[in-house]
């Protein structure tokens, strides 16, 4: 019975994921595509849950749905030209893209075919899999872990540097100050002119 339930859940999730993935490439509105991508990610997270990897599933939702998709949606919303316009599904260069995609698919298929899949793990899962994962990350896989975090740090610093053109900002501020001063002077001048006009009218 458990086996049957697992199969039902797996095929439902796999179907959902594949349908959503199809929608990502087939939909004409790019925002709809981005949202279909969310469904794909959630479907994959569900499959992780089925495989008894709840940590991976939750992180999948947290990173891919909570961060990456939000980033994609922001990028779409901030690029005016993409909003509202429907996208063409075919361009003239499909004859380049199709063989490349086929080659990629073939490569992934080959890898999937030649891998010997472990149908059940050699040893039972540790009772606290998350703690075991943390220990492994901090001992056996410390170097890759640190390299990944340094990579992220570099990206973060780079983003700040790119978003912070100090000289330009000073120049823009000076320009704005000059404009404001100019406007003030002009306003003061106008006031004088009006006063003068009013005075002329009032005199006779």
């Amino acid at each position, binding site marked *: 019975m458990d086996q049957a339930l697992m199969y039902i859940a797996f095929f439902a999730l796999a179907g959902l994921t594949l349908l959503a993935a199809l929608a990502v490439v087939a939909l004409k509105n790019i925002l709809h595509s981005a*949202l279909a991508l969310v469904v794909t990610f959630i479907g994959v997270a569900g499959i992780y849950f089925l495989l008894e990897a*709840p*940590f991976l599933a*939750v992180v999948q*939702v947290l990173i891919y*749905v909570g961060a990456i998709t939000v980033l994609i*949606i*922001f990028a779409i919303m901030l690029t005016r030209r993409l909003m509202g316009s429907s996208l063409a599904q075919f361009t003239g260069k499909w004859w380049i893209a199709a063989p490349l995609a086929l080659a990629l698919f073939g490569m992934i298929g080959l890898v999937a075919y030649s891998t010997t899949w472990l149908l059940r793990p050699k040893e039972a899962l540790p009772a606290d899999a998350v703690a075991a994962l943390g220990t492994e990350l901090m001992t056996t896989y410390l170097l890759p872990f640190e390299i990944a975090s340094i990579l992220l740090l570099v990206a973060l610093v780079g983003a700040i540097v790119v978003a912070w053109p100090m000289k330009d900002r000073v120049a823009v501020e000076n320009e704005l100050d000059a404009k404001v001063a100019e406007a003030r002077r002009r306003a003061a001048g106008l006031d004088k002119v009006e006063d003068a006009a009013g005075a002329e009218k009032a005199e006779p």
Partner: protein
Amino acid sequence: MELLLQGLNSWLGQSLPEWLVTLIGMAIVITMLLLLPTVLFMLLVWLLRRGIARLADRFGPNRVGIGRFNRERTRQRFPLWGLMQSIADGVKMFTKEDITPSGSDRWLHRMAPIAAIVPTFLVFAVVPFGKQIVGVDLNVGVLYVVAASSIFTVVLLTAGFASNNKFSLLGAMRTAAQMISYEVPMVLALVVPVLFAGSLSLNRIVEAQGAWLGLRWFVLYFPLGPIAFIIYFIAALAEVNHTPFDLPEADSEIVAGYVTEYSGMKFALFFMGEFLNQFLICGLAVTMFLGGWQGPGVQLGGVLGYLFSVFWFFLKTFTLYFGLIWIRGTWPRLRVDQLMGFAWKRLVPAALGNLLLSGLAVVVFNLLKR
């Protein structure tokens, strides 16, 4: 859940196959998890309106109730303190016209409120309401809560975009920026009790606070616990767009933010999500820092222990919720630039430093114990 299954098994185990008993148990739990938030929502709205009214020296809703008429054919002064107001509001919401603005993305506009309520209900599944009273005791509970609430960011961006309204889009952008920024200090503060308890499971975190008659709460681990608690509470307020961080729906600036173009039941769903999220941040604060369902009397065996655990959880949570009402009734709103600066320049460094010190403290204590 486990408890319920055991009970069902001993009751129906002989006459029904095991998988059917499991399914029935699941159905009962799911129904309860859907009904509890709904009933809570009505109570919370009423509590907020009465509380704010009290703070503003008004009466608040005090008419709708099962009251008797006195001789002058006027209702008694407080017929059940207006408790039935929420039911009247519910009927009103159902009968209101549902408007879809022209030029909006119809499908997304319809889906957004539904998708907005789902993460909230998902979180309810892992909150330990009492001793062994929890939907699912996930061993990644804390992360699960954070992940579920992060889905909401996508939903509100969708809602803001689909409405085809400047104010909606502005509100959505503001909310997304705010939620992403404040998620960082919130998670960093939540890691501190995780370190203390040595587990990500909400239930085990509560159990780790069980010493001293259930009063050894993580918030009492001076000074790291209180700092983490305060940082969590501030960041969580911003996460659920509560005062003083209610810029996303600042009615004096951008009408109602991303819910501007929603009416009728669709608006009610957003509204419900907001209230339940406020309840959940209180519940989570209680679970992580204030001992959850632990308290004097929980150690008793039998039904009494369970009753005490539920009582303590809800007492603590509603006390915190009253704090929210208090803040809402008295505090002004932050400006956008103040908001971002506060998150990144104050809360994140404070939370990071606190986390480092907590890690150190845990290591030192473990060494001393040996």
